[in-house]
């Protein structure tokens, strides 16, 4: 693996290898001494052109647990916002002595562009690009799901995919890099995906995606799903005519108390997932977010393990 740009680039074997390595990484984080020396002397740069404290600290923790040095480069309020190009910024990092670049960028494809050009010859990790992809988020979601299902079934998660699991991804699919990355990875790992959203928040052209598409959250919940992935609805969508108002959105597409009660009454083992940060009361109610079904905090913990596995794979040799 040279870069981690899109989950569409991962074979099933590679994806499972990352999840398996992440299992070991997660185990190591339960020890008294959490640090591993694998990347000692290597430098990982977190190059963030967009604010995302959560993702940045998760990558930072992952790199530090592997003993890498971490340089955080926030492009906001720096020379970049004064017109310095991505190329110049990247080459500056190379000159500083970076060994890998974790990049968050508001433009779809910016990490792929960085990887495809001769600007720098370093491994690139896409930490979220525009409305394109966020592969480590999808990996941590798959990791969480695999682990939870193994726990439920009393088996070991190692070496397994997500075959036969039913996952509904609910909300602002159009603007969600998490939805795209999850779609490809869940497919690769054998899960069945249903996208649930108002038609205005589904991309034109999504009809060719390898998933079912529904406008009816209640029908999808009633059909029985192993996990509901609730996506964040961003505030700026309110004023752009995607839906009339927050109340109507949560009435039709929010995981509210009534739908939580419906899940509980049906005896379903459905997990509730959310990439965070949550808009409580909009796409997810507090009761749903805090219910025993919720994996929200587990996802955060697993995020560090998955990012450790990703950095480890990129900064060591090819996978056997």
């Amino acid at each position, binding site marked *: *693996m040279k870069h981690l740009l899109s989950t569409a680039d991962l074979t099933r074997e590679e994806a499972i*290898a990352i999840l*398996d*390595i992440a299992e*070991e*990484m997660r*185990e*190591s984080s339960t*020890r008294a*001494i959490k*640090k*591993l*020396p*694998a*990347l000692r002397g290597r430098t990982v740069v977190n190059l963030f052109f967009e604010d995302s404290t959560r993702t940045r600290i998760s990558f930072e923790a992952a790199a530090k647990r*592997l003993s890498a040095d971490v340089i955080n480069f926030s492009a906001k309020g720096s020379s970049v916002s004064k017109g310095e190009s991505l190329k110049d910024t990247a080459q500056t990092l190379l000159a500083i002595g970076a060994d890998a670049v974790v990049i968050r960028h508001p433009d779809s494809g910016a990490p792929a562009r960085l990887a495809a050009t001769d600007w720098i010859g370093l491994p690139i990790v896409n930490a979220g690009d525009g409305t394109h992809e966020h592969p480590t988020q999808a990996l941590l979601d798959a990791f969480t799901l695999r682990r939870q299902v193994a726990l439920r079934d009393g088996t070991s998660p190692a070496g397994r995919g997500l075959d036969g699991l039913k996952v509904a991804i609910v909300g602002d699919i159009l603007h969600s890099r998490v939805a795209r990355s999850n779609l490809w990875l869940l497919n690769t790992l054998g899960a069945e995906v249903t996208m649930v959203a108002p038609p205005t928040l589904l991309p034109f052209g999504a009809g060719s995606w390898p998933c079912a598409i529904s406008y009816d959250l209640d029908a999808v919940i009633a059909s029985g799903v192993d996990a509901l992935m609730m996506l964040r609805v961003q505030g700026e969508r309110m004023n752009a005519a995607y839906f009339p108002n927050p109340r109507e959105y949560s009435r039709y597409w929010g995981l509210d108390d009534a739908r939580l009660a419906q899940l509980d009454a049906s005896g379903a083992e459905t997990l509730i997932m959310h990439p965070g940060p949550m808009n409580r009361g909009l796409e997810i109610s507090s009761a749903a977010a805090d219910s025993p079904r919720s994996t929200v905090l587990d996802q955060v913990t697993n995020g560090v393990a998955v990012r450790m596995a990703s950095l*480890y*794979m990129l*900064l*060591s*040799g*090819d*996978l*056997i």
Partner: protein
Amino acid sequence: MNENSVPDAARTVLTGDDIERVLTRVAFEIIEANKGTDDLVLLGIPSRGFPLAQRLAARIAATAPGNLDPASLVGQLDITMYRDDLRHSTTRTPSPTRLPAGGIEGKVVVLVDDVLYSGRTIRAALDALADWGRPRIVRLAVLVDRGHRELPIRADHVGKNLPTAKSEKVRVHLAEIDGKNEVVIEGAA
């Protein structure tokens, strides 16, 4: 390589029976050095060090008074993240580290591996061990010592000293992993 062809000068240096005999001797050496089984912990280094450690533990437990559970003596120590060649070799998937219930704090830990060669694996194992606790004594038992050390490391218990050329390959096959028990040398001139 054709499946039916025999590798150039592949030579069996230990048969399955030889391995059994050698392990029995090493088990007794370990007990003797430790003056019994108290505080003893055998940690195998993946992948073939672990079944060797299990076999040694079974022998050692059998000599102890009462019903000593071999599983209480044995564990596995993963060293993948401690290797000094991560940058140059292919990516290795780490294995779990499993310590016996009593842990390793203040114990006599015997690291068990199949082949002792450059010593770098053992260097990594000592680093890994330090992150898990502080044993009272650390010893090293190996099935084969083939020489060519690159670090000041030596084994306390050696099944067989095997003079080799650097161009040769020593292959250890264990039934738990490989379906058969033998040690062969390949590529000898």
